């Protein structure tokens, strides 16, 4: 069975400082991993995805994530936070051909001026 743990329910950063959102996964197979973001009153938007190619994945808006099999982690990072990054971020795993995604509980990113 697959599962995802997002280690922080809330992360607060100042504008211009680095962002780290942590995610650990459990999967019986070679998983596909995703990060989605949800801004208020908006849909879930795909930030980036890992599907067994390069372990360092670059996404939109300057975000990237590194797949570390030995640590079963897929942490999301950004070098410099922007006010517009404030949103909820979901780490997602899929191991069965994409039909059923398993979501983490989400991490709310708060960015202060």
């Amino acid at each position, binding site marked *: 069975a697959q599962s995802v743990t997002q280690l922080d329910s809330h992360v607060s950063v100042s504008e211009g400082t680095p962002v780290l959102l942590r995610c650990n996964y459990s999967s019986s197979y070679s998983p596909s991993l995703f990060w*989605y973001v949800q801004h208020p009153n908006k*849909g879930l938007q*795909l930030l980036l995805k890992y599907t067994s190619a390069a372990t360092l994945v670059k996404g939109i808006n300057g975000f990237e994530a590194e797949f570390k099999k030995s640590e079963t982690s897929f942490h999301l990072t950004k070098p410099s936070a922007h006010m517009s990054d404030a949103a909820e971020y979901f780490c997602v795993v899929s191991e069965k051909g994409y039909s*059923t*995604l398993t979501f983490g509980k989400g991490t709310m990113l708060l960015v202060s001026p």
Partner: protein
Amino acid sequence: EPEVTQTPSHQVTQMGQEVILRCVPISNHLYFYWYRQILGQKVEFLVSFYNNEISEKSEIFDDQFSVERPDGSNFTLKIRSTKLEDSAMYFCASRAGSGANVLTFGAGSRLTVL
């Protein structure tokens, strides 16, 4: 950029009433999904739909739920007799086809059952 459109954005209903949530997936997509998120909990898979039939469903998706693609553009989720615990945000998603492993989600429909 193509979008998945959901209506209504928010619906309030009385317990026992029927509710239909509507979704317009991206036009050339072939796979359709419903997920839901109860307040404070994880986003959960409900059902997937392909070629005019359910391809997979979770244990949440019991006989009270049904899905339909009535006219080739809309994809609906019907809850026959709503319960308090059906209160949640319901997300529709679509995907292009085999090999395209990215789901595009709508903004969600918030259902409140009183």
